[in-house]
């Protein structure tokens, strides 16, 4: 070990000691100071109530299955539709110009309207046309609202991915005798999709949370179930329980997305 390496090791140790000490101080301050606030007891009773949590947690987990279900069928649909919209916005042939207009209009509209409004308008509006059961189910139309909104965002990310592939790649593919379509399918898209995986992971996490917005049109998913407990027990703890369940799912997912991002950045250097 050279003197320089020894010195750097010493510096690293010092840094981690300081970090540990300051973190400890912050945690202790929180643990000691917050309960000293005059309203802490009431807040604790209303938000961190063990008995209420134990009572509501199993049913909250049960309701979370509905979130997962809606997520499970929405996510793949969004991926496919988003990619199609992205490709529609990229068509080069003049005959297909209407497709480009459609793609642009679609992304503008669905990125411009708040998700909850889309959920309301589609979830109550379309079934109001007089569709027979089960085709008027809020599960179907609520999911569609999510799918349309998220496809617009996902399409934009895909398009950014397609644009990030240098156009010399396309020229090279064409000069090798590949058709436009083959160049897109076999050369550009594989690179484009790989480039945007980290950003799409973030969309996936956002979608998982936004599934809760479907509760406004009827489905009893975790957020609504927590709300039911809240009003029956006059206590906000079930919301904290729901937040915990979300975090158990989303923290690993966000960590994974961050890891992918970091790896991509390292590769590009």
């Amino acid at each position, binding site marked *: 070990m050279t003197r320089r390496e020894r010195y750097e090791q010493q510096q690293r140790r010092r840094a981690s000691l300081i970090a540990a000490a300051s973190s400890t101080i912050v945690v202790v301050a929180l643990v000691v100071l917050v309960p000293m606030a005059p309203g802490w007891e009431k807040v604790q009773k209303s938000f961190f109530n063990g008995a209420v949590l134990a009572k509501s947690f199993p049913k909250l987990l049960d309701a979370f299955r509905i979130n997962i279900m809606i997520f499970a069928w929405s996510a793949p649909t969004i991926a496919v539709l988003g990619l199609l919209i992205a490709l529609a916005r990229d068509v080069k042939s003049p005959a297909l110009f209407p497709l480009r207009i459609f793609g642009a209009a679609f992304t503008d509209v669905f990125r411009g309207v708040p998700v909850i409004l889309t959920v309301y308008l589609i979830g109550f509006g379309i079934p109001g046309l007089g569709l027979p059961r089960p085709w008027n189910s809020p599960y179907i139309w609520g999911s569609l609202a999510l799918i349309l909104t998220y496809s617009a965002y996902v399409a934009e990310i895909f398009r950014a991915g397609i644009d990030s592939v240098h156009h010399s790649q396309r020229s090279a593919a064409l000069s090798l005798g590949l058709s436009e379509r083959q160049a897109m399918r076999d050369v550009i898209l594989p690179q484009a999709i790989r480039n945007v995986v980290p950003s799409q992971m973030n969309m996936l996490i956002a979608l998982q949370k936004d599934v809760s917005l479907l509760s406004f049109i009827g489905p*009893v998913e975790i957020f609504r179930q927590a709300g039911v407990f809240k009003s029956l027990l006059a*206590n906000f703890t079930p919301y904290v329980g729901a937040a915990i369940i979300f975090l158990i799912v989303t923290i690993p997912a966000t960590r994974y997305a961050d890891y992918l991002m970091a790896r991509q950045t390292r590769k590009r250097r």
Partner: protein
Amino acid sequence: MTRIFALTVAACALMTTTAMADGHCAAGKTLDEGKFTIATGNPAYYPWVMDNAPESGKGFEAAVAYSVAAEMGFAADDVVWVRSSFDEAIQPGAKNFDVNMQQYSITPERDEIVDFSAPYYSAPMAVLVSPGAIDTAPTMAALKALKWGAVGSTTAVSKLAEVVKPDGDLLLYGDNADVNAAMTANQIDAALFDLPTALFLSAVMIEGSKVIGQFPADAGDSLDQFGMLLEDGNPLKACVDEALAAMTENGTLAALEAEWMQDTTGVPLIK
């Protein structure tokens, strides 16, 4: 529930022997000295509050509120109205109202977090059905087969789960307007409300819907008792209870109920 009811009866019985409220009971106990601040919903609905204007004193809850205020020695001008959501009413910390009145069902669980006055109204639960289901027989068996909805923040949710036990999944909504939208879209066949609300919705809001039955008072706690909600431990509770007891005693409460709620007849019991 029955325990609370028994206690209330006992309390009322005790109070009738004491002197009437002398107007000083609430001194120093209200949010603003000399003012009585009452919260209602936003919007507040008929027949509880007419035209969303509680200060008019029209509508059952508005009328009861002014009556209670008078009984406690407040002039009508000293009554201040604010709006609050359910969540604001139950959150910990300082409240922006003395009492909150928006058809809050008294339950033992809620009572642990907030205080309730003595009940000012008892309502049976009633079944509102969509235009497509108005021929449903008012029997449990027929009701089970329906697609049910309710407002998620009401005690109707637990009543449905305990009493009706529907075959399919429940759908729950944020407010009456959304239940209305779901009925119009034919996503639900039936919804459970307290009887006056059900009657109002069928008469005014949901074209072609009908109240097909009400639950008998003994069906799994089916009788909802509405109380004014106060902050936990608020000393004003004693004054409000005293005022309500006096109003029960002298027939004011019954008269107001007859005036604003008398159309709660002609709805069969569910067997």
